[in-house]
C-alpha cells in the first residue's frame, strides 16, 4: 500500500502541478515524463519557503505557487506559441533561440528527425529503456528500510512542514533539533509532507515517495545519456547513416544501465530515504543536459530545472548548483577573444547564474534570517588542518578509486580517438564535466577540513554518501563515451576522398551538422 500511495503522490501530487511547466521546458520529449514530478517537487519546495517565511500551511502555499506558475506558463503560450513547440523564428534567421555562441546545428540537433510515427516510437523506446533500468533498483522498495538520517533529518523536517507555519518555525528554531541540521533545504521533506497530507503520517510512505522522486532525477540524467545517442547518430553521415538505429538503441541501453549504476553507487542510501542520491542525480542530470548535450534552449532549461532541484535538496547541492550555474553560463555565453570585458555579456552571464540560483539562495537566506544553522560548523575543531586533510583525502580516494581510474582511462582513450566524433556530435568538451566534478569535490574536501565534527567519525558516517555525486557523474561521463565508442564502431569515419564524394546529407540535424563540421563546439 505504501508503495502505491507514494507512487501516486509523486505521479499526481507532484507530476500534475509540474506537468505544464515541464512541458514548457522540455517540449514533447521523453524527458518530460521524469521532469514533471521533479518540477512539481521544486514548486513544492518553493511553497515550503513561503510556509516558513510568510505563513500558512503547505497545501495552501503549494496550491498558490502551482497556480501562479501554471497560469504564467499558459499565459506565455497564449502570447508566444503553442505548447511544446519552439518559438517561431523570423524568416532567414537560424533557430539559435537567442543563445550566444550556439550555432544552428547545435540548437537543432536534439530535434527528433523523421515522420511522426517513427519519432513517437523512438521516444517511447527511450522512456521504456529508462523505466526498465529503474525497475531493478526499485525492486528494493519491497524492503522496509529507513535510514538513520532519513529519520533524524528528513522525516523530522517533514513532520514540521506538515504541521504548518508555526510548528515549522518554532521547531526549526528549537536548539534541541540542531542534530537535524535545521538549515537543510526543503525539497525532500516537503515531498514527504505532501505524502502525509494525502495519506496520513506513515514514515515508510515518505521514504518511498523520496525514492520515486530520486528515481525521476536519475532518469533525467539517464534520458540525457540516451539523448546523446540522437546527437551521435546525427553525426553519422553518408553511407554510415544506416548505423543510426544501432547507435540510438545503444544509447538507450546505456541510459538504462546508467540508472542501475547510479542507484548501485548509492547502495541502500538510494532507497532508504536519504537525500544524497537525490541531489547528486539532479546535479548530474544538470551536467549531462547543460554541459554535455549540444547547446539548445531545451537542454539549457532542463539543466536549470535540475540545478534548482539540487540546490533545494541539500546544502552541498546548493554549493554544487552554484558551480554548475557558473559553468553553464560560460558554456552558453562564452568569453570572446576581444571585448571580453563587455558589460552586457557579463550581465547576461550573471542572469544565467542568479535567476536559477534564486530558489536555493532564498531558502539559505530565510534560514540565516531566522537563525538556523547546521551541526557541522558549530565550533572550531581541535584537530589540525593537516590531519583532517590527510584523513579526508584517504577517505575520498577510497570511495572514488575504482570509478575514478576507469573514468580517467576512458577519458584519455576517448579524447585521443573519439574527440573529432564528439565534436561532430556537438557534445560538450569533457573538460566542462570534469571541472564540475573536481570543483564539487574541492568544496566537499574543504567542508571536511574546516568543519567542526571529529574527522574520523564524520568521514566514517558520511563520505560514502557525500561522494555519490562524483561517482554517479563519472558513470555518466563514461556512459556518454560508450555511446560515442559504439557510434565509432558502427560507423567508422569515412576517408576524406569518400567524404568529398558522398551525397549531401538530408534531414534536419544532419544537414545542419554537415554545414558546420569545421566548427568546434564547446
Amino acid at each position, binding site marked *: 500500500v505504501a508503495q502505491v500511495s507514494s507512487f501516486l503522490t509523486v505521479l499526481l501530487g507532484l507530476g500534475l502541478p509540474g506537468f505544464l511547466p515541464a512541458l514548457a521546458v522540455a517540449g514533447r520529449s521523453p524527458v518530460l515524463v521524469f521532469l514533471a514530478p521533479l518540477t512539481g517537487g521544486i514548486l513544492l519546495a518553493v511553497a515550503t519557503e513561503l510556509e516558513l517565511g510568510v505563513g500558512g500551511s503547505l497545501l495552501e502555499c503549494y496550491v498558490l505557487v502551482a497556480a501562479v506558475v501554471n497560469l504564467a506558463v499558459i499565459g506565455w503560450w497564449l502570447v508566444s506559441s503553442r505548447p511544446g513547440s519552439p518559438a517561431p523564428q523570423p524568416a532567414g534567421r537560424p533557430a539559435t533561440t537567442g543563445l550566444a555562441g*550556439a*550555432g544552428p546545428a547545435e540548437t537543432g540537433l536534439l530535434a527528433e528527425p523523421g515522420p511522426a510515427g517513427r519519432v513517437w516510437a523512438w521516444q517511447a523506446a527511450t522512456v521504456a529503456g529508462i523505466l526498465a533500468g529503474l525497475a*531493478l*533498483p526499485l*525492486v528494493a522498495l519491497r*524492503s*522496509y*528500510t*529507513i535510514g538513520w538520517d532519513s*529519520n*533524524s533529518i528528513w522525516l523530522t523536517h517533514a*513532520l*514540521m512542514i506538515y*504541521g504548518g507555519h508555526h510548528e515549522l518555525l518554532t*521547531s526549526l528554531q*528549537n536548539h*534541541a*533539533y540542531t*542534530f*537535524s541540521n535545521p538549515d537543510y533545504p526543503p525539497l525532500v521533506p516537503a515531498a514527504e509532507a505532501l505524502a502525509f497530507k494525502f495519506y496520513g503520517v506513515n*514514515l*515508510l510512505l515518505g521514504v518511498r515517495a523520496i525514492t520515486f522522486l530520486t528515481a525521476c532525477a536519475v532518469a533525467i540524467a539517464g534520458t540525457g545519456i540516451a539523448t546523446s545517442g540522437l546527437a551521435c547518430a546525427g553525426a553519422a553521415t553518408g553511407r554510415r547513416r544506416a548505423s543510426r538505429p544501432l547507435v540510438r538503441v545503444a544509447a538507450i541501453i546505456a541510459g538504462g*544501465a*546508467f540508472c542501475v*549504476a547510479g542507484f*548501485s553507487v548509492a547502495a*541502500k542510501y538510494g*532507497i532508504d530515504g536519504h537525500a544524497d542520491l537525490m541531489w547528486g542525480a539532479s546535479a548530474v542530470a544538470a551536467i549531462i543536459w547543460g554541459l554535455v548535450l549540444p547547446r539548445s534552449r531545451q537542454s539549457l532549461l532542463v539543466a536549470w530545472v535540475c540545478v534548482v532541484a539540487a540546490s533545494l535538496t541539500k546544502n552541498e547541492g546548493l554549493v554544487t548548483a552554484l558551480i554548475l550555474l557558473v*559553468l553553464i553560463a*560560460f558554456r552558453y555565453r*562564452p*568569453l*570572446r*577573444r576581444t571585448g*571580453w570585458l563587455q558589460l552586457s555579456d557579463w550581465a547576461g552571464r550573471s542572469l544565467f547564474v542568479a535567476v536559477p540560483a534564486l530558489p536555493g539562495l532564498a531558502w539559505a537566506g530565510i534560514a540565516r534570517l531566522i537563525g538556523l544553522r547546521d551541526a557541522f560548523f558549530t565550533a572550531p575543531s581541535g584537530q589540525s588542518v593537516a590531519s583532517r586533510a590527510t584523513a579526508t583525502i584517504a577517505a575520498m580516494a577510497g570511495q572514488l578509486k575504482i570509478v575514478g581510474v576507469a573514468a580517467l*582511462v*576512458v577519458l584519455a*582513450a576517448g579524447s*585521443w*580517438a573519439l*574527440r*573529432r*566524433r564528439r565534436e561532430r556530435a556537438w557534445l560538450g*568538451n569533457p573538460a*566542462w564535466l570534469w*571541472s564540475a566534478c573536481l570543483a564539487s569535490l574541492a568544496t566537499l574536501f574543504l567542508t571536511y577540513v574546516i568543519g567542526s565534527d571529529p574527522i574520523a567519525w564524520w568521514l566514517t558516517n558520511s563520505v560514502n554518501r557525500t561522494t555519490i555525486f562524483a561517482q554517479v557523474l563519472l*558513470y555518466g561521463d*563514461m*556512459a556518454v563515451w*560508450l555511446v560515442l565508442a*559504439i557510434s*565509432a564502431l558502427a560507423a567508422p569515419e*569515412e576517408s*576524406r*576522398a569518400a*567524404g568529398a564524394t558522398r551525397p549531401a546529407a538530408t534531414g534536419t540535424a544532419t544537414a545542419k551538422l554537415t554545414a558546420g563540421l*569545421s*566548427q*568546434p563546439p*564547446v
Partner: protein
Amino acid sequence: MPSGQFHDGSGGRGTAAASSDPVPDAARPAGGGRGRRVGTAVVATVVAVVVALMLALGVYRDVRLNTGLLLPTSIKTQLLGNDREMCLYRELRHDLPRGASFYDDSANYLHFQRLAEAATLWAVPRLTLASAQWHVTIVRGHCAGIALKAWRR
C-alpha cells in the same frame, strides 16, 4: 579552464575557430588512412569494454544489494526497527500531553535524538532540565524491546 571557452562570439564560425582546427592528427581518418581507422576502432573497443564492465559492475552491485535487503532476516530486522520508532511515536503521545516540554534523562544522546524525532508535532524537546516540564527516558520494555518512562517534574 575548459578548452574552447574563448570564442569570437560568432558561435565558433569565426576565422579563429575555422583556421585553427583542434582535431588531433591521431583522430583524423584521412592522411593516416586505414591504420588510423583501425587504431580508432581498437581504442573505441577498449572504451566500450571498460565502460560496459563498469556498468555491469553497477548492475551486479545492485542485484547484490537487493538480495541482501530482501532476505527474510533483513526484512525482520527492518520491521523491528520501524516498530520501535512507531512505538516511541505512540508512547510519547500516550504519556505526554500535547505541547508538553520534556528533557531526556538518559546519558545517551542518540536516545534523546530518537525521542525528539518521535515527539515532533506533539511535544517539545528541551536541552536543559530547567526549561522542561517532563522527564522522559527510554528503558527496556514491552514495545519491540523498548518502552518509554515519563514523569512530571
